[in-house]
């Protein structure tokens, strides 16, 4: 379980969630994004392609980061959700709060 952070040539910070985003590691995830925001980055993509599952704490941290990034004039996008993860976002109606695209490439092109 790890969060891999890289920067796309267009300046987008891509955070890959490899494994779970849940109550026990949400702070580590949040800190990685906040560190980049603090360092001046404003474009963020969370890539869920290698993700197993997310719990409500993970959803909560995405909601709070999205607001923080927007307040700083930035943009947070989500991509690579499998059918189960998409269902979770639809169930909680968070699909209305986030810009979600199927592939990371589509999300990067949309910035």
């Amino acid at each position, binding site marked *: *379980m790890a969060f891999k952070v890289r920067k796309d040539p267009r300046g987008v910070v891509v955070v890959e969630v490899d494994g*779970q985003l*849940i*109550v*026990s590691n949400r702070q580590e995830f949040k800190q990685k994004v906040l560190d980049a925001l603090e360092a001046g980055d404003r474009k963020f993509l969370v890539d869920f392609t290698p993700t*197993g*599952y*997310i*719990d*409500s*704490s993970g*959803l*909560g*941290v995405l*909601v*709070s980061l999205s*607001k923080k990034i927007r307040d700083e004039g930035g943009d947070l996008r989500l991509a690579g959700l499998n059918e*189960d993860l998409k269902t*979770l976002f639809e*169930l*909680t*109606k*968070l699909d*209305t*709060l986030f810009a979600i695209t199927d592939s990371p490439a589509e999300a990067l092109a949309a910035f």
Partner: protein
Amino acid sequence: MRPALSAHLARLGSARRGLAAELTLRVPGDIGVVEEAVELVARHLETSFVDRRAIRFNVRVALAEALANAILYGSGEDAARPVAVRVLFGRHAVEMEVTDEGGGFDPGLIPDPTLPANRSRPYGRGLFVIRGLVDEVRFSPKGNSICMVVRRA
């Protein structure tokens, strides 16, 4: 060092409602143990429950939610105050009961997190997510124990 997670598996002699085995876990009140406990339960279910996809997602997320609630609010993240997990399972059904040592809560008082006014809150979705992922949810009268049921034909 955190108290260890312990587990015990028993085959039930007279299977009730098609539930042929019982797995019991004693989970320390430490959120760092949630994922390990969830994986342990999921691995046992994979030996008999018919719906692999439900184990991969619905069961894992619902159990992670219930454990997180029990540890954060029931045990107050005190590793010495364990959470009891009892899983009855068979080919067509799984019943997961999570019980903490806290004072319980009234599930009827949790606001709907999907209402527009609540949607941008970073918390308050746990129980709603559980209800959406399993077929039946029951609480003990005190509200410190939740039972989540997943059924597949």
